[in-house]
């Protein structure tokens, strides 16, 4: 069989994760950690607090991703880095892996065959995504990083926050650093909040899009992929 021409060897495919490659989002990961506290009482307390905070998270996300990050990641304050990293493997096996869209791996495989560099660009925490990145065999992972002092989380994110327009900026820097042509690259996301990430590449693709992004995709003639539909 003739192999693809590798026309895209100076190209990359950038993937959002939550809702794009997997069915769940960062709140699921947060809840997972909340349920796994050193004591039963602490676990119950954290779980209840997380559940009660969901409407606040939702509202903050709608208003500003920056506010959301500030409120949401405060919940990690005091958590030990070792514990978070260790539990990330369990998080992947129990929560993330069963929720990977059936066709997500296929899409990544097609993209890799075309010669594109595979990059995850997500607002989730880096340690929670490392097992997924390994599983999907992507080349690079760009994600938010918690600030740790003496091995304990401060509840703040390191800058720059990987969200909104910053994602596009990070992708530009990444492309420059690796000699990639963004005009011949792909971006995949499910959410209108990633509009900048999609708009910065030559081949934006809406994946399982929300209503607002679906409408934008239709207007701009971007392809729409539904990875949640089994082939």
């Amino acid at each position: 069989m003739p192999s693809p021409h590798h026309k895209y060897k100076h190209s990359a495919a950038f993937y959002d994760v939550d809702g794009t490659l997997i069915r769940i989002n960062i709140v699921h990961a947060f809840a997972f950690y909340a349920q796994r506290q050193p004591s039963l009482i602490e676990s119950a307390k954290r779980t209840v607090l997380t559940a009660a905070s969901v409407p606040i998270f939702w509202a903050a996300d709608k208003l500003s991703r920056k506010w959301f990050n500030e409120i949401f990641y405060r919940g990690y304050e005091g958590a030990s880095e070792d514990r978070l990293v260790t539990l990330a493997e369990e998080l992947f096996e129990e929560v993330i892996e069963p929720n990977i869209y059936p066709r997500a791996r296929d899409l990544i495989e097609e993209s890799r065959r075309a010669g594109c560099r595979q990059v995850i660009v997500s607002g989730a925490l880096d340690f929670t995504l490392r097992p997924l990145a390994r599983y999907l065999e992507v080349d690079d992972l760009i994600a938010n990083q918690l600030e740790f002092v003496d091995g304990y989380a401060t509840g703040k994110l390191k800058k720059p926050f990987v969200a909104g327009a910053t994602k596009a900026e990070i992708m530009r820097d990444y492309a420059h650093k690796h000699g990639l042509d963004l005009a011949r690259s792909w971006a995949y996301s499910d959410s209108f909040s990633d509009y900048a990430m999609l708009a910065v590449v030559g081949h934006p693709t809406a994946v399982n899009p929300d209503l607002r992004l679906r409408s934008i995709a239709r207007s701009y003639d971007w392809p729409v992929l539904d990875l949640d539909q089994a082939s």
Partner: protein
Amino acid sequence: MRAIRPRTRPQSREHVVTIDTDSAPRILFSGENFVLEDLPVGTRVIYPKRPLTGIANPQAAIRYALNHPEQMEPLHALLRPGMKVTVAIDDISMPLPIMRTPDVRQLVLEIVCEMLADHGVDDVHLIIALALHRRMTDAEIKRMVGPKIWSEYWPDRLYNHDACDPDGMVVVGKTMHGELVELNRRAAESDLVIYVNMNFVPMNGGHKSMGVGLCGYESLKAHHTPKAIADSNSYMNPPDSAISHSMNRQGRVVEKAVKVFHIETVLNNRTFDGPLSFLMKNEDEFTEADRLKFQGMKWALDKLPFAARREIFMRTPAAYELIGCYAGSCEPTHEKTLAKSFEQYAVEVEGQADILITGIPYISPYNVNSKALNPLLVQVMALGYFYHMYRNKSLLREGGVLILTHPCSDKFDPVHHPSYIEFFNRLLPETRDAYTLEKKYQDEFAYNPSYVEMYRRGNAYHGAHPFYMWYWGQRGREKVSRVIVVGADNATVPELMGWETADSIAEAVAMARGTMGRSAQITMLHHPPIVISDVV
């Protein structure tokens, strides 16, 4: 515009009617609706032949063909217990519209599969030979093959061909012209391939079945090119078609690599029957009832929204009947198929036209069950298929004017035609030159991972498919001086195509006469059903 009135004056020739002062207005398809308009006196209207009588017992005809094949042993004599057999089946692109159940392919498959089982052949796979067309949905496959075959073979042994599967394709050789020949691996590694063809127009069948149906993108590069189309003096007439010659060369390489038993079926042209049978008639012969039915239907269509109109047409299957079944080795079988096909479709026409008028219907081979006949498909129907519906000389003379009726709406089906959308909006504004598009962009679209994913696991046409649609209009674009579209609902689509617009056929004819002169010969092709002009 006048209402259709019955007329009693006999016509000298049944299939070629000349418009007189008292002729009825003519009905033309215009997407999911109709246009009814008077044509200038002296206009020739070419009608399809009446449907040939269907074979009374299709199953008997199929069995006879399998037992009396052309230059090959009967099918049962080729079968051995334990052998590996692949049955390839033509996809949903034919016939148009879809036919009533049972589909002829179901009838053939039920007989073939029973014969395979009787001879102890258990290793049987059924593959929809769709090349770079979209994957058929489960419901479409079930409807096509029938419940018996479906329940026995689906999903493990009845599935769509995947031209982009790196492990599922194999190169079986090259032609003397250096054309690569790829084939579905399962078929290539089989002891016998049985091809179940549905021959709807003369460009179907023959070596195209295996050479294209089960091939890959790199194989199609040999003939799906602007040059091959430009060099095809009607791709509806295989001896004059450069594409057909290339496919034949590839097909012969395939036949050397794997034994193929071809089963070809020919349908008549009974596109409409029952309450819609008046659409098969000469408007001069309409009865009062026909006239009322048409006006009632037109009134309703005018009132209904686009989606509802489309749904009505898509849910009206045709009453096609089997008129020929032939089997055996490829070329002698196909020769018989072609003869039967032309017997149904070819209508003798004297002389070429200066101005050709044709209605573009709601359907093409590439939008069955789609949300729209998108602009690229309107183009392929006009400058591709309908322009090429001739043998010998083209019906429209070189430098002539083509008049179409279609709304040319900017509507695409994002599930079936995602790459068409990008092609139309990004590439066509840059250039309409097919050679530039081929060189600069075809591979980019073909290997676009999003489009590959949508083709392989969604229901999208391959990323390169819109290029083929554009190429298929290449000869028409080169030979036609002007294209005037009547009834376009926007200016952008015709402009991107390089077409002019008119509000009525009368206006379009006046514009065309500006180029071709007052005495220009005007001809209207009255279809569907399909008619192929045999221009002498």
